């Protein structure tokens, strides 16, 4: 496979404010690359540099062998783009917006465009200003896919979409991948990236801290579990179990809060020995994971850890 995106020591700052620093990575053609990071980490800056909306202070970015800044026009013929905060003429209807962008791209396959509109059940007769957040994102998502681009660059594409449309999006990503197209998507939700991507890059504080296949991300994925019991239980029971990282007693021993990684089998079996009132498991925010995983881990966070 050949690299369709090649980023080398890319840097951008906004006056004195940090943007990104020395970001380097490659995305292979046909890959679904998840660009993961908490809010403000530098995902959108990297994407806007790829789209030639920003000019890099240092480093290079190439798409399909073309320089992102100098040959941006040729590159944009290959790309479908969805910005993180879509802003369009509020007085145009969804249909007019799609028609306009189809013209700007030199025409698209009308049948495929209509198919996408049907697929997302978009009401094209409403003005953009009248759309809900989810419907605004549908319009922008359709315009990104409608010309069957070789590379899709999507900035937090599922943010604001309902679960049904998120599933539809997942299917579209899969189809695009099966057709050999490349997808570069950013997200701050681990499970979303886990679901759709094959390769993942993690950015934090403007620096790329890890690149690897999606299995690597699963390794850092931690979750939390709170179990409430009808009677007080010996909390120590949980400390030595497989998958348990931290244990905290709650409600005078009537409950336990666990930080977990990996399988929950041992914990569930141990809990079953006592009268359980409730069991709640949830995924912490990416920021929480990063704080725990990377804090005090200077050497690993200073430079990208390539494991793929």
């Amino acid at each position: 496979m050949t690299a369709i995106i090649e980023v080398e020591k890319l840097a951008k700052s906004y006056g004195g404010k940090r943007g990104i620093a020395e970001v380097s990575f490659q995305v292979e053609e046909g890959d679904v690359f998840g660009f993961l990071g908490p809010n403000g980490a530098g995902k959108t800056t990297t994407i806007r540099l790829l789209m030639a909306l920003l000019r890099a202070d240092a480093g290079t970015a190439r798409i399909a062998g073309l320089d992102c800044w100098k040959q941006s026009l040729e590159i944009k013929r290959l790309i479908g783009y969805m910005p993180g905060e879509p802003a369009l003429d509020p007085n145009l209807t969804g249909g007019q917006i799609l028609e306009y962008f189809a013209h700007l791209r030199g025409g698209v396959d009308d049948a495929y465009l209509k198919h996408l509109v049907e697929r997302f059940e978009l009401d094209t007769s409403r003005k953009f200003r009248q759309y809900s957040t989810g419907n605004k994102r549908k319009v922008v998502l359709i315009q990104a896919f409608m010309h069957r681009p070789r590379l899709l660059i999507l900035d937090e594409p599922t943010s604001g979409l309902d679960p049904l449309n998120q599933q539809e999006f997942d299917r579209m990503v899969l189809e695009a991948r099966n057709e050999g197209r490349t997808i570069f998507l950013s997200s701050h939700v681990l499970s979303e990236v886990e679901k759709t991507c094959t390769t993942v890059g993690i950015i934090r504080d403007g620096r790329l801290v890890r690149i690897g296949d999606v299995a690597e991300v699963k390794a850092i994925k931690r979750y939390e579990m709170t179990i409430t019991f009808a009677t007080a239980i010996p909390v120590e029971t949980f400390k030595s179990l497989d998958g348990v990282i931290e244990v905290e007693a709650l409600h005078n021993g009537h409950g336990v809060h666990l930080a977990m990684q990996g399988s929950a089998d041992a914990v569930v079996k141990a809990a079953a020995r006592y009268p359980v009132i409730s069991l709640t498991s949830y995924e912490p925010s990416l920021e929480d994971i990063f704080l725990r995983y990377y804090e005090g881990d200077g050497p690993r966070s200073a430079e990208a850890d390539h494991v793929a």
Partner: protein
Amino acid sequence: MWLRSVFLKALRDYRIPILGWGIGMGLVVVSPMASVATLLSTPQAREQLVGLAATFAWNADVVAVDTIGGYATFKIGMFIFLIAVWPLLAASRMLRGEEDRGALDLLLSVPRSRLVVALEKLAAMWTALLAMGLLIGLLTFAGGQKFGGGFSLGDGLLFGLNLALVCAVIGGVALLISQFTQEAGPAAGWTAGLLLFFIVLDMVHRVIPNSEWISRFSPIYYYNRSKPLVPSYGTNAGAMLLLLVLALVLSGAAIWLFARRDVGGTVPLPCWLRRPAHTASRALPAGDWSLRSVYARSLGMIAMPAIWWTVGIAGFAGWMIFAVQQMEARLSTLFASSPTVMNLIKNIGGGDASLNAGFLSAMFVLLPLFLMAFAVTQVNGWSADEQDGRLELLLATPQRRLGVLLARFAALGSATVFIGVITLFASAVAAAASGLTLDLGNLAAATLGMIPLGVLIAAVGYLAAGWLRTAADTGLLSFLLLVWFFVSFIGPELKWPDATLRLSPFYYYGTPLLHGLPLVPLLGVLAVSALALSLGALRFVRKDIGV
């Protein structure tokens, strides 16, 4: 301190309009005082002024117009629409605008009733109107003192209060209508239409005998019942009280409806007034010319404002041609008694002000000013598109940045040409209809010659937009426009050196109605425009978008 309550926060938001609109409108009241003071030197001049005002009696009450206060009241009566613009816009946005932006959802999530929130916002708007009325009253009094108006501070303040009251009524109408519309814009539009209707309704009794009962349905009629700046006429407390009651009833009804309807929804209309239910569609538009390219889309965006500005500018030119003949005799008597005004008109018009050609030429010099104001509003749109992120997706398509900028600029250029051509056409028709003989070549020069000036300010605006945010860009252009206007129209009277006068583009427009097209100077203006646009384009193709 200003963020302690909804009332204070809303008042804080109004602080710039209070100062800007209050002082601006105060100056609008004072300026006719200044101009008329020099015209009232002889009994003949007074007589002519009364006669001149009488020709506009259909528009405003002609009461003691040969006094400073009477003339100012008369002039403001003619421009009451202007005064009501702020309350009209502010009230239509007060609740509906915030609902549009989704800001009201958050505000109404705090433990404060909907009624209280709305009342606090309304109280802030009324406080702002009173503060504006106070500023207008104080400036009016100061103007009266300066030019010998002969009215007291109390009269000035009552004048301001009367204006604030009629503005509160118009605001109440806008607030009420906004309960029935999905967006603030249509509410403002409907209110503006109603305001025009009220103004016409008030005019009826001045034109048709025994029709005063019809005018009584207009709030403007009750505003005109009080003329505090004319001590002999005085203030009609009943009329002012009625305006207050009207404002209370309209605003009260609006808030009552707001407290009962869905936030983000509208008050349900009777079924015969409702629009047909929206039916979802998956169809895509075909054959829409305005979606075919960036230039076509830019033209589509600019079309509606361009048409309205064309109506205004071409209408002004046509109306001046019609009016100048009717006013000729009176103007010459007036100007004869006022060397200052005579010189001013002569400086601006470039000819003898006592002749209608000189006067008309002076009025035509306002045309490029209007066209440039139009260009400023459109440059604002370009700058706002980048600031609000609307260029991002456009620039993600295979369109060159330079092409996008030039397409937008070309659309604006096309609109200025359209306005120039239609103004020429309207002027020629008006001249033919009124029997006024005008040199067609000079008329073409006067109307088409304004195009380079419109293009110039647009190019300067595009250049500045490379660095400045929307508000700063628009502010800079407005400031430039004011400075240029001042340099060209006041500079000669102040005997400023030619080098200073050359700094204003109006200098290069000259007085084409009398002296023909100054081709070389206007080509110079175009060259400067091209340079500014080139620099602006150079900046745009290299800059970070949306930063």
